[in-house]
């Protein structure tokens, strides 16, 4: 689907289904687009955060006097200065705005400073004296449930989850279906480990808080969900929600890492205290402790099958390290468990999932949200099973493919679209390029410009994987999106308000395409996102925003047209869209309490060619072909971009990306030491879009951002296994693992 030089004709103003140039592309290529770190206000101060150097410690004393006396410093604030609620959290308010008596992770915020110049703020922050008494950190998730509780008040209990009295349990889940002990002809088992991945968005956490002179504050920030930010910020400031207006500033990537608060409360506190605008912008090093990460995981799996290849039972245990605070861990473990088996039909299942508190870096949402970790284990198991049965791996997957009418381990029947077989067949049919001949430019060999090989010791491997994931929020969450449509008196132009966060994925264009399609008006603008102008859109996450924003804008446009037909004057109409209701899982059996726990699904299959220098452990991904179930491609150019970019993030987890944690402290908080894929690491990606409309979604759309990230790590490791013959049960795969050291 990649546009080539000759076929790149794209539209400036398109409708649903047309390849549209990004609305914001021109200001982004000229440098005019205002990201949150570019904001400036007259008389503004710079904020900086004092952070804990310990993963676990008691705070014995805080002395801010020296910092307060430094030149240019206007404020040094601690937990005592938090005007309202002292803790916050995306789902459970278990995280202090500023630590009081205890710090629970390396980099936890302890105090904040505002000064005239950024350098003055940094120096003043360094001059805040904090006396710590280091405590034994809880760092091994397998032992966390036997160690003293980090949150004795158990903030995630009493919310309908399984009552698990063990210390440091964030949530435990059991999904039991049929007879998990049922015997098959063949059994394969494995243990898998997934390292901690960072979102590594390029635009650092940043924003500007401006006091309104009447006790309230405007916060301009890069975020994924404006209204849930407001609902967390206002109580901490002891303000009414209307007194806190959150406005979307330019977002330099998100990938889940901007679901939780970063600078929002801190910048607002400093602004209200100094009565000056306050800007905060994290450095890259600070960004590594300024947001949550993908959960590291350990997974134990046992698959049993008949000689024919038919799955008989799957048993899995999944352990996620949630780190110091809950964030969205309760939902991540649910996803990891409900997608543990993969898109396969199996009647007998036992999944035992647990996410724990530790003193490691807090974990939460990252693209793929639990399904990534499970897919790595489940697909490795399918490859092992294929080998044990001497069945072609693609055939084994086709044989067991879950399709509409089939049942998930939660008992949910697939009622909508899930073209698993079609996706597998199409991905498997993409022709693989011939092996390149030797000699060749070293750039196209493992080790690249490092010039480590001329081709000897290089082996080719081909891998395949399938992954799937939910679209939209699940388990009974009241998932909604508002949109407001204003049609001008002359009926020739319209303005849309929708708080859907444009994080780079292109939802702005989706909104405009829907509005043009529905209103049949070409001159449509989307106002900048603000909590002051329209109701909540929900989050740009869970591959939900295209579906939800399209639903809301469609609904509001149709209502606006109706009203205009009745009245004949300018109209201003707001509507709230909801997708079909979902239901909770039974806390003891994991069986869905109603029709469905997830509203819909998207499936993706991927074929990968790698070359591996088996002597040096160096790898090169040579080619990737993928077929993805996209429902309906609203903007095919943007869909291909999501697939290619999502694949790159999965490649990073497969080969290089891991936050190195030592006794709770991050050892590689920079792009020098935490590596993300470069231009040379990414091969061409051939993508095929499978358009099987989702019956419950507007225009049949599905989200497209997450499936490529879910499947690509698994597919790349599958190819590495094929090349090396090694088990490679841990990602990222290290040179040592390939060489067998």
């Amino acid at each position, binding site marked *: 689907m990649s546009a080539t030089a000759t076929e790149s004709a794209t539209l400036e103003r398109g409708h649903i289904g047309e390849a549209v140039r990004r609305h914001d592309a021109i200001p982004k290529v*000229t440098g005019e687009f205002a990201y949150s770190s570019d904001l400036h206000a007259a008389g503004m101060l710079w904020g900086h955060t004092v952070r804990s150097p310990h993963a676990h410690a008691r705070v014995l004393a805080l002395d801010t006097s020296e910092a307060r006396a430094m030149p240019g410093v206007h404020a040094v604030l601690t937990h005592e200065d938090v005007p309202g609620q002292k803790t916050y959290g995306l789902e459970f308010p278990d995280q202090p705005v500023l630590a009081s008596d205890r710090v629970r992770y390396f980099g936890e915020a302890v105090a904040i400073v505002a000064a005239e110049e950024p350098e003055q703020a940094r120096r003043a922050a360094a001059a805040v004296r904090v006396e710590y008494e280091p405590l034994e950190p809880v760092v091994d998730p397998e032992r966390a449930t036997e160690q003293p509780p980090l949150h004795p008040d158990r903030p995630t209990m009493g919310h309908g989850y399984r009552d698990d009295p063990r210390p440091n349990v964030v949530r435990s889940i059991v999904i039991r279906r049929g007879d998990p002990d049922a015997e098959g002809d063949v059994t394969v088992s494995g243990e898998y480990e997934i390292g901690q991945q960072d979102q590594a*968005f390029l635009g650092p956490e940043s924003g500007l808080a401006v006091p309104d002179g009447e006790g309230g504050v405007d916060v301009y920030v890069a975020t994924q969900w404006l209204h849930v930010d407001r609902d967390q910020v206002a109580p901490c400031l002891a303000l009414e929600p209307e007194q806190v207006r959150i406005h979307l500033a330019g977002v330099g990537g998100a990938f889940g890492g901007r679901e939780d608060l970063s600078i929002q409360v801190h910048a607002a506190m400093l602004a209200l205290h100094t009565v000056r605008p306050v800007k905060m912008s994290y450095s890259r090093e600070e960004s590594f402790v300024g947001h949550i990460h993908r959960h590291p995981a350990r997974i134990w799996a046992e698959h049993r099958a008949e000689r024919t290849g038919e799955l008989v039972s799957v048993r899995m245990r999944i352990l996620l390290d949630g780190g110091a605070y809950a964030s969205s861990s309760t939902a991540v473990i649910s996803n990891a468990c409900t997608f543990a088996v993969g898109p396969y039909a199996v009647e007998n299942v036992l999944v035992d999932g647990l996410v724990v508190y530790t003193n490691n870096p807090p974990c939460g949402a990252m693209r793929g949200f639990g399904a990534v970790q499970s897919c790595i284990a489940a697909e490795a198991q399918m490859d092992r099973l294929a080998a044990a049965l001497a069945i072609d791996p693609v055939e084994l997957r086709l044989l067991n493919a879950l399709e509409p009418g089939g049942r998930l381990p939660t008992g949910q029947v697939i009622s909508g679209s899930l073209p698993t077989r079609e996706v597998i067949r199409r991905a498997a049919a993409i022709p693989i390029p011939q092996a390149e001949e030797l000699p060749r430019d070293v750039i196209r060999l493992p080790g690249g410009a490092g010039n480590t090989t001329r081709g000897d010791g290089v082996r080719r491997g081909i891998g395949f994987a399938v992954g799937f994931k939910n679209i939209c929020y699940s388990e009974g969450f009241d998932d909604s999106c508002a949109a407001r449509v204003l049609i001008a008196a002359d009926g020739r132009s319209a303005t849309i308000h929708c708080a859907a966060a444009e994080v780079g994925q292109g939802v702005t264009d989706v909104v405009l395409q829907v509005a043009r399609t529905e209103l049949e008006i070409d001159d449509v603008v989307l106002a900048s996102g603000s909590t002051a102008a329209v109701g909540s859109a929900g989050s740009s996450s869970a591959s939900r925003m295209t579906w939800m924003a399209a639903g809301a804008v469609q609904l509001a446009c149709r209502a606006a047209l109706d009203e205009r037909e009745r009245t004949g004057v300018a109209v201003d109409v707001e509507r709230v869209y909801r997708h079909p209701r979902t239901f909770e899982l039974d806390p003891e059996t994991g069986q869905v309490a109603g029709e469905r726990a997830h509203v819909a699904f998207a499936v993706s299959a991927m074929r990968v060619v790698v070359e591996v220098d088996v002597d040096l452990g160096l790898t090169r991904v040579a080619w990737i072909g993928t077929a993805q179930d996209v429902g309906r491609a609203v903007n095919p150019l943007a869909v291909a*971009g999501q697939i290619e970019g999502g694949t790159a993030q999965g490649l990073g987890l497969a080969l290089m990306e891991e936050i190195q944690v030592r006794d709770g402290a991050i050892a590689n908080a*920079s*792009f020098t030491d935490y590596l993300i894929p470069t*231009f040379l690491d990414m091969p061409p990606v051939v993508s095929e879009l499978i358009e099987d409309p989702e019956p419950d979604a507007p225009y049949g759309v599905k989200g497209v951002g997450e499936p490529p990230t879910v499947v690509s790590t698994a597919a790349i490791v599958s190819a590495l296994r094929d090349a090396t013959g090694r088990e490679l049960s841990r990602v990222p795969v290290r040179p040592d693992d390939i060489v067998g050291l």
Partner: protein
Amino acid sequence: MRIALKVNGERSEADVWAGESLLSALRGRLGLPGSKNACEQGECGSCSVFLDGTLVCSCLVLAAQADGHEVATVEGLAGDGELHPVQAAFVEAGAVQCGFCTPGLVVATEDLLRRNPDPSDDEIREALSGNLCRCTGYQKILDAVKLAMAR
């Protein structure tokens, strides 16, 4: 300290502190935030500018070092009301998502095509491998560079 330099063809002056980077001076003092601050240690290329015609990471150059020199930033590429061909190609090919890497990539692509108007795919990949992009997987950027070449 006070520095005087030419930025995008115009004479500019700024008061900076001795340890301040050119990137910080451009963004904070000269009103040119187009060059981006993603890593500030020369790993990501988001802050790429021309210093006397040479491609540099402006985060690794002291503002004081630019005193008396000429700097060209992404803001200086487009003509009056008209995008530079590299910029137009990035827009058309879908090479922009969040866009935070885009200014640096546009500048680095301009540098590549000045030095080598007809690079191979491998040469493009290598020349731009110092510019990190987290959104696109680079494929549409490759398409954009080839589109710019074709023009």
